[in-house]
């Protein structure tokens, strides 16, 4: 399987003297769902910007779709990469939701007559059909996030980067977007998702979890591997998913849950045996 993102010894500073990203190396395989977690200010959004070619002056090697992220390649990379910003307002350009989505499609050279069906399809998928003629600034927080996501997904990228894209959605809305993303992945097995999140439950279901601490990549692996380090994670401001925390609390109360249990269902069955 090929690597969609390949990063080798990446460092970056906003200002001289302090490194925001320091010697970061990892790969993201094509078709995988990877989450990046880390404390506030650890460098997650900065890393997303580097991958999307939004900052210059980094050192080290950054390859996306096998191409070096530089001036020469950036157009080609951006044509297949979609970044959903942490603040959706930073993404909107159109005066209505429909215009905004059309603008994105125009950038991808989609002919005008093909736009409307695409816009309507993705607005519907994101639950925003009723709001196509609404101005983005007149939407609620969660509605803005849904529109920002619909806009990026409508461009059919091969690599989606979510920067806390669902942080203001209600619990059902969060699940809807996850389901939609997984559906798109099924339709396009090449689709790769790189999701920055503080939601450890989302991370628990990823193929791979990356952990940043003060600009350093400190842990990397399957969710089970990464979250088995719950004491270390706590030291760097993170926590384990509910199931891991509950097993720990049960053990503290003298209930010796065996090691092979890793889902709520398995735990329920164990407790009910």
């Amino acid at each position, binding site marked *: 399987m090929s690597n969609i993102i390949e990063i080798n010894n990446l460092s970056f500073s906003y200002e001289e003297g302090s490194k925001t990203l320091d010697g970061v190396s990892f790969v993201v395989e094509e078709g995988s769902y990877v989450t990046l977690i880390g404390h506030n*200010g650890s460098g997650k959004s900065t890393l997303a910007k580097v991958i999307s070619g939004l900052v210059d002056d980094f050192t080290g090697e950054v390859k996306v779709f096998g191409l070096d992220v530089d001036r020469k390649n950036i157009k080609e990379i951006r044509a297949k990469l979609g970044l959903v910003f942490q603040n959706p*307002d930073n993404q909107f350009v159109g005066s209505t939701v429909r215009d905004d989505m059309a603008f994105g499609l125009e950038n991808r050279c989609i002919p005008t007559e093909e736009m409307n069906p695409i816009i309507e399809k993705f607005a519907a998928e994101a639950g925003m059909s009723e709001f196509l003629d609404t101005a983005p600034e*007149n939407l609620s*927080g*969660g509605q803005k996030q849904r529109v920002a996501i619909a806009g990026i997904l409508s461009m059919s990228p091969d690599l989606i980067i979510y920067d806390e894209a669902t942080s203001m959605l*209600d*619990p059902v*809305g969060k699940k809807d977007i996850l389901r939609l993303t997984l559906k798109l992945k099924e339709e396009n097995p090449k689709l790769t998702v790189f999701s920055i999140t503080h939601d450890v439950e989302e991370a628990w279901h990823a193929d791979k979890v990356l952990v940043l601490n003060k600009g350093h990549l400190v842990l990397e692996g399957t969710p089970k591997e990464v979250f088995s380090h719950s004491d270390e994670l706590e030291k760097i401001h993170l926590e384990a998913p509910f199931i891991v925390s509950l097993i720990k609390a049960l053990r*503290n109360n003298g209930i010796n849950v065996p090691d092979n249990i890793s889902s709520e269902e398995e735990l329920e069955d164990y407790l009910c045996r």
Partner: protein
Amino acid sequence: MSIVFSNVFHTYGLKSPFAFNALDDVNLTLEEGKFIAIVGRTGSGKSTLVQHMNALLKPTQGKVVINEWINSSDKKERTKKLAGLRKDVGMVFQFPEYQLFEDSVIKDVAFGPMNFGVKEKEATEFAKEALSRVGLDESFYERSPFQLSGGEKRKVAIAGILAMSPKILVVDEPTAGLDPQASKEMMSLFRTVLESGTTIILVSHDMDIVAEYADEVIVMESGQVKKQCKPEELFGIALQEYSLDKPHTYAFAESLRQKGIDIQSKSLKNVNELALAIKEKLNG
């Protein structure tokens, strides 16, 4: 200070073809000194509701009475000067960016108290204290608020409101974008603020947080208040119709119940309470 909504409507774009009823006959009493959570699906009217509490929005019908202040659709009835209300009811917006505007963090946080008459020197002291309470050290004082990470911006916005020592603190999704530890620390900070006599009004999609911290919860749906009750009462019922989920602890207890272990405990604020309840059940 209590807050009373009487027959409040809010229509955005009133008299335009895009008129939209975001609040639809809200009647609600929020008591002083409580930790009150407001929940409900995306677009249900939570942010619109809370912005009536310090008159950032005015009702298009009905009135909101906040102690001596009246925020009414009727101009004659409405209190003329609302500046004092803005000091007493501190509001942190859902998007903190819109609250930041000075060129340094310290000035930004000191702005609120200065705006209400505190001298610069004292306001700066208030600002330093507020920043340390939200977990931002001296290295942040001279930085531009616009060159911070998402979570750091939110902390600055919250500090800016805390520095004014409001009597009612309204926070709209204050933990969105905070890392797990910062989120816990922020919630325990709000609890400390509550204990000093401030009413806390929290808008949140995080049911685990609501279960752990709120005394009372209000459910919004399509611009109406559908429920006002204790969290444990809410989490005992089916929540899907409001696009809400149970907190993890309640959901797990429910699954156990279906498999034959009926957990007795009424309140399951966190994993420790749940583990204890399971232990008691298995041993007893």
